[in-house]
């Protein structure tokens, strides 16, 4: 029988998000039930995260019948459904105004109800939710008894103005139901070589990748940097698909101080252990885990870090092996 790791934990816990297995799921190698069974069989749980809009056909409104079936899958596998990732889909008509605030609040409530019904103890939400709507949503999360963690994802980091604005609202609302979910892609030390190799394999030229590395290190919003590289690339004769492959880096990684996470530890309720490639000797190729992870253990974090392999965005390595190595790396650093 699975137990809630957060109830009994004495230190940080490990787990996995099914997002790591995006390739295996999209190619129909696994159904949801067989994927959960495989995760359990390989001992990569018991703590798991699921993106509602990836693995649940009925999302954002799951039926009672499906919720019952999902709870059976969880009971059969002994997994622990810690986090359900929900989405702040505000731009439903490209090129037009975002949806009304009331519609966005209701969209979040629908997903919160589904996550609760499925047995998750927290949700991941996104900064696309304007901070002034938190006072409308937080009481609903309290009523449902489900915590909400906003994902601090690249290009954001602890020092980003949006994070600071959320922090001020968190102080004002002062509720344990709201917190942070750090995603370590925000403090990458470099662009992963495996990502650059994938762009090379598509035919991207070295001068485009050099320019990518240069622009990536600059300050600015992802879409502004992507636009700058696109403009430069087109002017220098690069293929649009090569430029697009290179621009991926702006949306999933940014270069900030790994030690900056210390400012967010107190309100961290869950972690996305973002990674791209862990070597056989248990070192991540772009993110400085040896600096980051002790901050959370020393700061008293007892929630779960789910291993989040994102190499599937550009190559087809064995996700199960990558997750195994990532969890082994976490145990090496955290002990136990």
């Amino acid at each position, binding site marked *: 029988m699975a137990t809630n790791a957060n109830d009994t934990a004495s230190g940080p816990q490990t787990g996995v998000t099914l997002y790591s297995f995006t390739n295996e799921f999209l190619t129909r190698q696994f159904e949801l039930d067989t994927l959960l069974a495989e995760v359990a069989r390989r001992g990569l749980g018991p703590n798991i995260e699921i993106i509602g809009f990836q693995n649940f056909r009925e999302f954002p409104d799951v039926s009672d019948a499906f919720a019952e079936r999902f709870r059976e899958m969880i009971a059969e596998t002994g997994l622990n459904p810690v986090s359900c990732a929900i989405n702040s*889909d505000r731009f439903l008509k*490209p090129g037009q105004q975002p949806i009304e605030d009331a519609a966005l609040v209701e969209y979040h409530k629908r997903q919160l109800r589904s996550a609760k019904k499925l047995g998750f103890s927290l949700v991941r939400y996104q900064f696309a939710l304007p901070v002034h709507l938190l006072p409308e949503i937080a009481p609903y999360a309290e009523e449902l008894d489900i915590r909400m963690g906003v994902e601090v994802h690249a290009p954001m980091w602890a020092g980003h103005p949006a994070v600071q604005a959320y922090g001020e609202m968190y102080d004002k609302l002062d509720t344990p139901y709201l917190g942070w979910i750090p995603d370590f892609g925000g403090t990458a030390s470099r662009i992963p070589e495996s990502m650059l190799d994938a762009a090379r394999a598509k035919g991207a030229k070295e001068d485009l990748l050099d320019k990518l590395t240069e622009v990536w290190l600059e300050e600015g919003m992802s879409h502004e940097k992507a636009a700058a590289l696109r403009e430069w690339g087109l002017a220098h004769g690069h293929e649009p698909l090569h430029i697009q492959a290179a621009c991926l880096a702006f949306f999933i990684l940014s270069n900030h101080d790994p030690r900056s996470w210390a400012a967010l530890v107190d309100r961290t309720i869950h972690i996305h252990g973002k990674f791209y490639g862990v070597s056989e000797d248990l070192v991540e190729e772009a993110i400085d885990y040896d600096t980051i992870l002790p901050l959370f253990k020393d700061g008293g974090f007892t929630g779960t870090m789910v291993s989040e392999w994102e190499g599937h965005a550009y190559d087809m390595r064995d996700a199960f092996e990558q997750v195994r190595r990532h969890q082994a790396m976490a145990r090496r650093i955290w002990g136990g």
Partner: protein
Amino acid sequence: MLPVERVIGEEGLAVCQQDNGGKALRLAMRLPWYRSLPFSVVEIGPLSIDGRQIDLGDALIEYDGARWPLSENGEKVDTFWFIRDSAFLVLPSQSAEVGSSHEVSLNLFVSPPYIPGMKRTNPQTCTLTVQAA
């Protein structure tokens, strides 16, 4: 091609019967993203078959037992394309012999609704043999 990039579905190209007794071509499509999205953020086309650009003015989308004109796709803000499913592009003005092979080029543009400013292009070309639906 990565799973998150492909736009032509495993079910390929088929001739299907219309309610009015006529025939249409039907092309399977996959959503080139890692999560389900509302159809409103997916721009479908251009499509060419054997190098000929296809007029999509009367094209329909068929998904999960429902059909709607492609021209109304931008309004489908609460109809979600599940990431494992194929949706189908129905072309009432097109036909082909069952068993014949054709080079099909399709592009789908995706604008993720939580990432302002991102619009991805996803061109794919395949040679498909026409099935009987």
